C-alpha cells in the first residue's frame, strides 16, 4: 500500500512561505500531477515527500505511516530530476546498478534486473558507454531506468520531459502513462506545462503561491475551475475572462461589459448562478473553443466585436476579437476563413459559461 497523505504541510524559507498548509491525499497506484507556475511550491512539496527537505510544520504519511523520522535514503522512493542528475563519472551500467549496490542487493539479482531494464529501455548497446557521450533522450531513459530498477512503490518525477525535443516528448508522454498503468506505482509528477498535466495525470493538484487552488481529475479542473487562477492557467489558449457588472434590468440579470455594451442571459444554468452572486462585480469566463462567431443579429446573447488578429497554428486557427477595452480569443479548428476587421458577434456557448466573483476570484454557484 503506497498512498501518500500530506497533512497541514507547511514549509518556510526565512519569511518566505513556499508551501502553505497543504492538505492532499494521493491514493495508491494513482498518477497525480502537481501543476503550477514557477515558484508556486510544487518542487518543494515533492522534495518534502522525497525527504530531501524537512517540513516546517505538518506531516507526510506513506500508507498511513508517518515519515518524519525516516531519512531520504530509507524512504524507498524513485526520483527523476529535471536535469536527470546522471552520475557523469560512471558508465550507464554503473548508473543503473547504483541503487541496487548501495542497498546491498545480491550480485546476480543486480545483473538480472539491470539487464531487464536495459531491454525495456532499449539501452543494451549503450550499457558500457560513458554517460557524457549519450544524447539528451538517452540520458532521460537512463535517469528513469536507474530509479525504476529499484522497483520503488512511489515514483516522483520533477519536470522530466521539459528538456526533450517536441517529437520525443510526445512519445515519452505516452510511454510514461503506459508504464504507470503497467507497474501500478503511485506516481507524483511535477510540471508547469498544463498540457502534460492534463494528458498524463489521473488527478491534478493546481498550486499557486504555495496554496492549493484545486484538486481534481483533468476534466473537472478544465471544465469546473474553482477560481480565475485555475481557469486562466488551464487550456491553451487560456480561458477568456471578461470583468463586468451584473445588472438586473427588468427582473432578469444582464452582463454589462461597459464600453462593449450589455448582453442578456438566456442560459438557465448561468442565470441560476448569477442569482447566487453576492456582489455585482463579476468576471465572465468563456473557453476559446466554446465561442461561436456569428453575424451580428439583434437578440442573440453575445458581444458585438471586431476581428483584430488571426493566428493560423496548423490544426487550429486562433481568432482575436476586440470590443472597446475587452479582447477575447476564439479557437476554430482547421483553416477558418475570416478577414481582419470583420464585424461579428461572439455568441456565448450554452451551458459552458463560467462566472467568478471579481474580488475573490472564486467561482460562483458551483455544486
Amino acid at each position, binding site marked *: 500500500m503506497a498512498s501518500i497523505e500530506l497533512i497541514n504541510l507547511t514549509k518556510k524559507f526565512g519569511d518566505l512561505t513556499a508551501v502553505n498548509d497543504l492538505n492532499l491525499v494521493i491514493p495508491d497506484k494513482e498518477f497525480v500531477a502537481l501543476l503550477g507556475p514557477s515558484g508556486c511550491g510544487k518542487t518543494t512539496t515533492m522534495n518534502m515527500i522525497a*525527504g*530531501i527537505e*524537512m517540513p516546517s510544520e505538518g506531516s507526510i504519511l506513506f500508507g498511513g505511516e508517518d515519515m518524519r523520522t525516516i*531519512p*531520504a535514503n530509507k524512504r524507498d522512493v524513485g526520483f527523476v530530476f529535471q536535469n536527470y542528475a546522471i552520475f557523469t563519472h560512471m558508465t550507464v551500467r554503473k548508473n543503473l546498478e547504483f541503487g541496487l549496490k548501495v542497498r546491498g542487493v545480491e550480485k546476480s539479482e543486480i545483473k538480472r534486473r539491470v539487464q531487464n531494464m536495459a531491454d525495456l529501455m532499449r539501452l543494451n548497446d549503450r550499457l558500457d558507454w560513458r554517460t557524457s557521450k549519450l544524447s539528451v533522450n538517452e540520458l532521460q531513459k537512463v535517469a528513469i531506468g536507474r530509479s525504476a530498477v529499484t522497483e520503488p512503490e512511489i515514483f516522483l518525477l520533477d519536470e522530466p520531459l521539459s528538456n526533450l525535443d517536441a517529437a520525443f516528448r510526445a512519445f515519452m508522454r505516452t510511454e510514461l502513462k503506459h508504464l504507470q498503468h503497467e507497474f501500478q506505482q503511485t506516481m507524483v509528477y511535477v510540471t508547469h506545462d498544463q498540457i502534460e498535466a492534463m494528458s498524463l495525470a489521473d488527478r491534478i493538484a493546481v498550486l499557486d503561491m504555495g496554496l492549493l487552488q484545486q484538486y481534481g481529475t483533468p476534466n473537472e479542473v478544465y471544465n469546473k475551475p474553482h477560481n480565475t487562477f485555475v481557469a486562466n492557467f488551464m487550456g491553451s489558449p487560456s480561458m477568456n475572462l471578461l470583468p463586468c457588472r451584473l445588472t438586473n434590468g427588468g427582473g432578469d440579470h444582464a452582463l454589462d461589459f461597459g464600453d462593449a455594451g450589455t448582453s442578456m442571459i438566456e442560459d438557465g444554468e448561468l442565470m441560476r448562478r448569477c442569482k447566487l452572486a453576492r456582489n455585482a462585480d463579476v468576471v465572465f469566463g468563456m473557453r476559446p473553443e466554446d465561442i461561436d462567431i456569428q453575424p451580428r443579429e439583434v437578440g442573440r446573447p453575445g458581444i458585438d466585436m471586431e476581428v483584430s488578429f488571426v493566428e493560423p497554428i496548423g490544426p487550429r486557427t486562433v481568432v482575436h476579437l476586440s470590443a472597446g477595452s475587452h479582447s477575447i480569443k476564439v479557437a476554430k479548428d482547421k483553416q477558418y476563413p475570416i478577414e481582419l476587421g470583420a464585424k461579428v458577434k461572439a455568441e456565448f456557448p450554452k451551458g459552458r459559461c463560467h462566472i467568478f466573483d471579481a474580488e475573490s476570484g472564486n467561482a460562483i454557484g458551483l455544486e
Partner: protein
Amino acid sequence: MPKPLHSYIWRYALILIAVGLALLPVAWMATMAFKPHTEWVTSASDLHWWPHQETWGNFEYIFTGQTEAVTVSHERTAGKPILASLVTSLLGTLIAVVAGTLGAYAVSRFKVGGNLPLGVLQLRLFPPLAVMIPVMIMWAFLGAMDTWWGLSLIYGIVTLPFAFWLMKTFFDEVPREIEEAALVEGCSWFRVFWKVTLPMVKEALASTALFVFILNWSDYVIALLLTRKEWVTIPVYMNSLSSAMSGQMYGAKAALGLIAALPPVIFGIAIQKYLVRGLTFGALKQ
C-alpha cells in the same frame, strides 16, 4: 537531512582546535609586539604569555630608532622599508595587472598570442633563485639595482602569470553577444573593450589587483637579491634587524611583523571568493 547532535559537537571541537592552532603563532607575535624589552626573553619557567606591562616602545623603536629600552645603534628606521614595500608592490601590481589584463582579453577574445598562455605559466614553475643571477647582473648593468623601478619591474613580471590567468577566466565568462551587440552599433574593438567589457569585470579587476598586491607584498627572496640599502622592503629589513650587538630584537621584529602581516590578511579576506581561482590560475572556480 539533519545531522544527529553528537556530530555537531565533534565538528565544533575539531574546528576549534584547528582555529586555535591557526591563531597561536600570530597571537604570540602580537603579544610579543607589545612586550617591553625586559620581557622579550624570559626564563623558561615563567613564560610571559601576556605582556605584564604593555608598551608601544617596540613600535616607537622601529619608527624612530630610539626607545628607553634599547639603545643599540641602528642605521635607519622602518619608515623607508614600509614605503619601499608599498611603492614596489603597488607599481608591480600595476604592471602585472595592465599587461595581464590586455594579454588575457586578447587571448580570450581573439585567440591570438600563441605561446603566451603557456609561456606565462612556465614563468611560475621555476624557483626565482634559479634565474636570479642573470637578472642581478642585468639589473646592475641597467643601474636598476636597489632602485624602486627595478624591483617594481621584477614584481610585475613575476606576478604576471596570476594576473593573466585570473583575468582570462573572467573574460571567458563575459557573454559574446553583449560585445557583438556593441559591435553591431559600430563600436571599434577597443571601444568595446573599454566601454563594455572592462566595466563589466570591474569588481574582478579589483580583486585581481588585490591578489597580486598580496603576492608582491609577501615577497622576500627577490627583494633580498635586488635591493641593498635604499629600497630594502619590510621582510629584508626585518631580517637585518637582529644584529650581533643586540642579538634577536624580538619585540621590535614582532611589531614590524604585525605591521607587515596586516595588509595581506585584510585584503585576502576581502577577496576570499576569488582566492581559489587565483591560486589555481583559473583552473578552478569557487
